[in-house]
């Protein structure tokens, strides 16, 4: 999996993002929560968008990119194409 730095326009101070590529294809967009409004969640990574099974109605926040990678791998492995 590949993580490419990208600035994301979220309308808040959260803009340090990563494009997550799997087999060369975009599967997720992550953003680090830097806005003071997030309180205790500051510093964690948030799933802003996911594609082809990398999604959840209520995705967890990730302490670091390694944790995000593990979760994304799990989503891809468990994905049932319907």
């Amino acid at each position, binding site marked *: 999996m590949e993580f490419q730095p990208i600035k994301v326009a*979220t*309308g808040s101070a959260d803009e340090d993002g990563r494009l997550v590529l799997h087999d060369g294809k975009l599967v997720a967009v992550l953003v680090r929560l830097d*806005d003071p*409004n*997030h309180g205790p*969640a500051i510093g964690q990574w*948030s799933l802003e968008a996911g594609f082809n099974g990398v999604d959840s109605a*209520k995705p967890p*926040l990730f302490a670091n990119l390694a944790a995000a990678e593990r979760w994304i791998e799990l989503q891809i492995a468990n994905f049932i194409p319907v």
Partner: protein
Amino acid sequence: MLHAVVGRGQSLKAGEDIVREGDHTDVVHVILEGHGFRYKTLPDGKRQIIGYLVPGDFCDLYGFLLDKMDHGIAARTHCQVAELTEDHILMLTSRPSLARALWWSELVNASILREWLVNMGRRTPSARVAHILCELLVRLQVVGQASADSFRLELSQSELGDTVGLTTVSVNRALQRLRGANLIQSSGREIVIPDVAALKAFADFDPGYLHFRQDREDHS
């Protein structure tokens, strides 16, 4: 009227279930004081809030007709809840004006649910949150718990997220946008709406779906 039939009711702590999802209920619960919400729980533990309850609201009108509750009802704050038996309901419905009030109440419940469905399916995150705030403002005004432009929001960002199908992060950003546009001001749980008409316009909020009828209120 309700007090005459059932007394002060039972006292529930914040977070307690008024009726549990899957349980059968022999009685109808009515919120006398406090706030509650309806919810459904998914197998993985996620929760969807499917309705808010304010004082005077029936939680499970005619619920005794069903084998089991298809959703749960919880106290969001400390609640005082009356319990009406099927006999109480039959007694109430023997008076046409009260029977109409109960029918009206169920029609409004269904109407709110329809509006929430539209809200979740067809509005942006900021407008969804704004719409819920507008609904709370006018519903709390009816029961004397909101001023012309402010009320106390008895919900966390996580509960708002469970209501409008957004993550806490998205709710947080939606609230920030509303604050940034000066559509709301908030300090702690107090929500102040500087220009109510502007927030309603932004949220595409038309209170018609709440079907307020002053004459109905007077009859009941």
